[in-house]
């Protein structure tokens, strides 16, 4: 029960920034894929520290290794060299401890399960009693405004609703770290804006650490406390932009000068890193 309360307790109050514990520490990380003809360097000499409560966006053109980096943090991919720590231990230990919730580019719902049972899937695997599973599912579905859709199957939902179910599923076991791989990439602009705002609310309220992959500059600037700009071939970090925007922000902030300045610097970083304009 203690874990359930946490979501509620944190709501309302602004999270204090003092602990600032490092959640992810990466130093000199390289990842080389051995392919049939020649080895491909996906990540080259990546240094990055993500602290507790950060909202870090990884932005860059396709093929710059941002998804790969997220997968290394999630222990879905192994680095070739360098060090990486998640919560002070190995990524594998973090995965075995269910330290993070991962939201994929596609919703990845299991089509034979209802919305409710998709959300409770991680809870079933963790061996939570039925009563608690139901309570948690009801709460996270309410959070993503999908109450009343419990009995529907994924094919009966729109793409945006499916992605919201997948976010509810990631939140259901209340992980402190959220890894999100272009979760809104396939959605239209209107729904995307709305989900961005909801995500920001959630981050503000719960103080979770979020690592968010995107290739949209406005999305990155609007959401992030830090923006990591990456470039391809080989994937490396070209700039890390600290956001001067307040944590408590809404859509009007898009008109602010500071917003434009940050967006400009991110765009410069992308252009500098890339050299061409194919993105």
């Amino acid at each position, binding site marked *: 029960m203690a874990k359930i309360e946490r979501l509620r307790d944190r709501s309302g109050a602004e999270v204090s920034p003092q602990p600032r514990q490092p959640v992810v520490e990466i130093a000199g990380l390289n990842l080389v894929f051995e392919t049939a003809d020649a080895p491909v360097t996906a990540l080259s000499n990546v240094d990055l520290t993500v602290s507790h409560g950060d909202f870090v966006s990884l932005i860059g053109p396709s093929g710059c290794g941002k998804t790969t980096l997220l997968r290394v943090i999630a222990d879905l991919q192994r680095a070739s060299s360098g060090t990486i720590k998640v919560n002070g231990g190995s990524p594998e230990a973090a995965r075995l401890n269910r330290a*993070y919730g991962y939201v994929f580019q596609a919703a990845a719902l*299991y089509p034979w399960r*209802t919305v409710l049972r998709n959300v409770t899937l991680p809870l079933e695997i963790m061996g939570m009693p039925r009563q608690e599973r139901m309570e948690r599912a009801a709460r996270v579905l309410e959070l993503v405004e999908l109450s009343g859709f419990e009995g529907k199957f994924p*094919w009966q939902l729109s793409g945006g609703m499916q992605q919201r179910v997948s976010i509810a599923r990631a939140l259901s076991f209340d992980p402190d770290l959220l890894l999100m791989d272009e979760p809104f990439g396939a959605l239209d602009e209107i729904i995307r804006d709305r989900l961005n705002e909801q995500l920001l609310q959630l981050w503000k309220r719960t103080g979770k650490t979020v690592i968010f992959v995107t290739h949209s500059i406005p999305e990155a600037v609007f959401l992030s406390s830090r923006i990591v700009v990456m470039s391809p071939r080989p994937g490396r970090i070209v700039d890390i932009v600290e956001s001067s925007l307040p944590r408590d922000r809404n859509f009007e902030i898009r008109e602010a000068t500071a917003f434009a300045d940050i967006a400009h610097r991110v765009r410069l970083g992308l252009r500098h890193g890339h050299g061409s304009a194919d993105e």
Partner: protein
Amino acid sequence: MAAPMNSAWERLRHGHTLPILTILAALAIVWYLGAIWLNSQRVIDGYEADDELKNKWTTGDLIRDTLSMERPVLPAPDQVVVELDHSVLEVAPTSNRSLLYHAWVTLSAALVGFALGSLLGIALAIAIVHVATLERALLPWVIASQTIPILAIAPMIIVVLGSIGLVGLLPKAFISAYLCFFPVTIGMVKGLTSPEPLQLDLIRTYSASRGQIFRKLRWPASFPFLFPSLKIAVALAVVGAIVGELPTGAAAGLGARLLAGSYYGQTVQIWSALVLASLLAALSVGAVGWVERLTLRHTGGEG
């Protein structure tokens, strides 16, 4: 008044009934023509041998007589229907003159074989999917097993099992199982490996055990592959049971009826046993299809 007529016509046009009835009618016509053609030579020979009838018979006589021979080369559909009616409805189902009795003898062996074969097929698929070396070690043998003609190996299975005291239902069930484990293994290997990388990554992030990955992902993901395999398997199981009844000259079962019919030239009996055998297979496939629809309705199938 036009609307309901229209909708009935629409339903007939778009449903399955009309196409099926059309094909059935076409088959019946071809069958009748075939019966007249195949039986005519013997009827004409009969006419020629008879001085009274010689040169006096008409085409009408010929058609009537070719369709009502006692031992025709190809019996007419109505003769088969009359025989079926006689041997199914007019005789007590417990009597060995009842075709239902023989059908049950065959069906029970087929169903036991189907159950054994399906379980074996599923077990093999689970082993192949989970142990990488088994895919290389076992799969070639699974495929090789089906290259042996079942007609050649069936008598040996019957004889070998008979020598250790196994007679009756079980040897036939083993032949059925031998035929029907194969599509189940192949279908289930495909089904158990059907989850997308994304679905596997997802459950990996929950640090699920192998058992959990199997129960929560691989097994339910295999259902769309399992049922088509089971439909093929159940039809093969009926074939297997009939083949199992042929070599020993079994006293009961549809295979025994086929054999007895061919010994005594009772073509009408052969054909009615054949028709019942295919009805049996069709009903079994239909039953599996019914279970499939029931299962898929509970697991989010669109149909």
